[in-house]
C-alpha cells in the first residue's frame, strides 16, 4: 500500500519535473510612480476626516494637503509559465506604496485552452465587475491617472474560483464572453475597516456567479456584465445582521460603451449595485479624449449615487477631471490630472469636497 502510494507520488513528481523542464517562463510587469496633493478641501468634520482626496477606494489611496508619493505608486510583476498545448500558469505580484510595497499575489491561476474558442481558468483572479476592474493596476493601459474613483468603490476586488471564457467572430464583430463562480474572504478589509467603520472588518463575498459579454468591432466596443453574491461581514469580530439575518444578497449590473474615431474617443460606463438594505448604488462615467501625436488631453466626469427606500441620505459624490497623457517613450507615459470632487452626503460623506492635483509615470515592461 505504502509502496503504491510512493510510486504514485514519484510518477506525479517526475511528471511535474518533466513539465517544468519544458516550460517557457516569461516575466513582464508594470509600474506607476505617482505623486499628488489636495489643493483645497473641506474634509468631513463630523467624522474627523481632514481635507482628503480618496483617489482609490479599495486600496484607500488617500492624498491630503501635503505632497505624497506612496498612495498610488505600485510595482507589479507577472510571471507566465507556458507549458505548451494551451496550458499556462500565471501569477501577478503587486507591491503598493499604500501598503509599504509589501508584495501580494493579486493573481495566481492556471489557464487552459480547451480549443480555439474555449478557455478555462482556475485560481485567484481579479473580479471583473467594472470595465477597468481587471487591469485597474496597469495605469499604462488607460488614459487617466486612475480609473474614476467614484465608480470603482468596490470593497472586494479579487476572487478565488473558476472562469470559463469563450471567443468567437461574428462577421465584422468579435465576441468575448466569460462566466465565473467564486468566493473571497477578506479578513482585514482595508476600505471598510480603515475608512468606514474604524474597526477591523472581515468582508465575505460568497456564492459569486457572474458573466461578462464583450462585443467589439473596429471603432466600437460594448461590454455588459452581471454578478450576484452573498455578503457576510464581521466588524470588530461581531457579526453584522441585516433584518435579522447574518447575510444579504447583492446584484451588480453594468454596461460600458467605448467609441474610437481615430483622434477622438469616448469612454462611458453605467453600473448599478443592488444591495439588500443599502438600496441601489448607481455609478456612471463619461470621458472624452483627443489624441494628437504623443499627447492625449481628456476631460472626465464620474458619479456615485445611493438610492432606495431604506436610504435617506446615502453616499453621493462626483468627480470632474481634466488631464493630459503624454507618451514620451515607447513603453512609458507621463500623466497629470486635476480632480474636483463634490461630496453631497452628510451621513454617508466619504472625504468631503476637494480639489487636487496628481501626476506620475506609468510604464510596462
Amino acid at each position, binding site marked *: 500500500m505504502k509502496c503504491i502510494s510512493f510510486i504514485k507520488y514519484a510518477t506525479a513528481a517526475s511528471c511535474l519535473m518533466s513539465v517544468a523542464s519544458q516550460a517557457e517562463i516569461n516575466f*513582464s510587469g508594470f509600474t506607476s510612480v505617482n505623486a499628488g496633493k489636495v489643493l483645497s478641501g473641506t474634509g468631513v468634520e463630523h467624522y474627523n476626516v481632514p481635507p482628503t482626496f480618496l483617489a482609490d477606494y479599495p486600496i484607500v489611496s488617500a492624498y491630503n494637503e501635503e505632497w505624497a508619493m506612496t498612495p498610488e505608486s505600485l510595482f507589479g510583476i507577472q510571471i507566465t509559465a507556458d507549458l505548451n498545448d494551451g496550458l499556462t500558469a500565471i501569477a501577478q505580484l503587486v507591491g503598493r506604496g499604500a501598503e509599504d510595497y509589501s508584495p501580494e499575489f493579486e493573481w495566481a491561476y492556471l489557464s487552459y485552452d480547451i480549443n*480555439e474558442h474555449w478557455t478555462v481558468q482556475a485560481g485567484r483572479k481579479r473580479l471583473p465587475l467594472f470595465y477597468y476592474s481587471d487591469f485597474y493596476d496597469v495605469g*499604462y493601459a488607460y488614459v487617466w491617472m486612475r480609473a474614476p474613483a467614484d465608480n470603482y468603490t468596490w470593497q472586494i476586488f479579487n476572487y478565488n474560483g473558476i472562469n470559463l471564457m469563450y*471567443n468567437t467572430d461574428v462577421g465584422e464583430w468579435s465576441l468575448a464572453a466569460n462566466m465565473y463562480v467564486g468566493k473571497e474572504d477578506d479578513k482585514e478589509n482595508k476600505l471598510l475597516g480603515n475608512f468606514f467603520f474604524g474597526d477591523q472588518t472581515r468582508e465575505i463575498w460568497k456564492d459569486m456567479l457572474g458573466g461578462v459579454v464583450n462585443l467589439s468591432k473596429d471603432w466600437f466596443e460594448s461590454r455588459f456584465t452581471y454578478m450576484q453574491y452573498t455578503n457576510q461581514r464581521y466588524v470588530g469580530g461581531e457579526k453584522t445582521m441585516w433584518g435579522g439575518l447574518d447575510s444579504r444578497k447583492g446584484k451588480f449590473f453594468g454596461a460600458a460603451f467605448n467609441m474610437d474615431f*481615430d483622434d477622438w474617443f469616448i469612454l462611458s460606463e453605467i453600473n448599478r449595485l443592488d444591495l439588500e438594505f443599502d438600496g441601489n448604488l448607481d455609478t456612471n462615467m463619461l470621458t472624452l479624449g483627443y489624441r494628437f501625436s504623443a499627447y492625449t488631453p481628456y476631460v472626465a466626469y464620474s458619479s456615485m449615487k445611493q438610492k432606495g427606500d431604506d436610504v435617506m441620505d446615502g453616499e453621493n459624490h462626483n468627480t470632474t477631471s481634466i488631464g493630459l497623457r503624454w507618451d514620451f517613450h515607447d513603453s512609458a507615459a507621463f500623466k497629470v490630472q486635476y480632480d474636483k470632487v463634490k461630496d453631497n452626503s452628510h451621513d454617508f460623506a466619504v472625504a468631503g469636497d476637494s480639489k487636487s492635483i496628481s501626476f506620475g509615470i506609468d510604464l510596462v515592461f
Partner: protein
Amino acid sequence: MNYFNKILVVIGLMLSNYAVADVAVIVNLENGDTIDANLIKKIYLGKAKVFPNGTKVKVYTLSSNQEDTKYFRQKALKKSNSQFKSYWSKLAFTGKGTPATKLDTAADIISAIKKDPKAIGFVNVKDVSSDVKVVKNY
C-alpha cells in the same frame, strides 16, 4: 539648378521612405488559407486565434523600436506604438491574450515561419524570400 536639386532630394527622400516602409505579411508555404487585412488585424489584436482552416496561430513580430514595426502597426492595425502597447498590456495582464513573440531581425522571422506552418509574421518587402509566402503588402 538649385531648385532642381532640391526637388530631386525631396523625391529621393520620399522614395527611400517608401522603400523602407513597405511591409509584407508572410506565412509558411504550406499555409493555403486566404488571409485578408481584416484577419491580419484580428490576429495582431488578439481577437482571432486561429487561421480559417482551424489551426492555432503562432504570431511573430519585430521589436517595437524598428521602423517596419511602427509602420505595420500604423498601417495594418491603425495604432501607434503606444496605443498598441497600451491595448496589449490590458490583455496580457488580465489573462486574455498572449502577446506576439518578438524576434530581432527579418531573417529570424523568416526562418521561424519557414519551420512552422502555424506561424505568421511581417518583414520589410526587401527581406522577403522564396522560403515564405506573402499574403498581404502594406
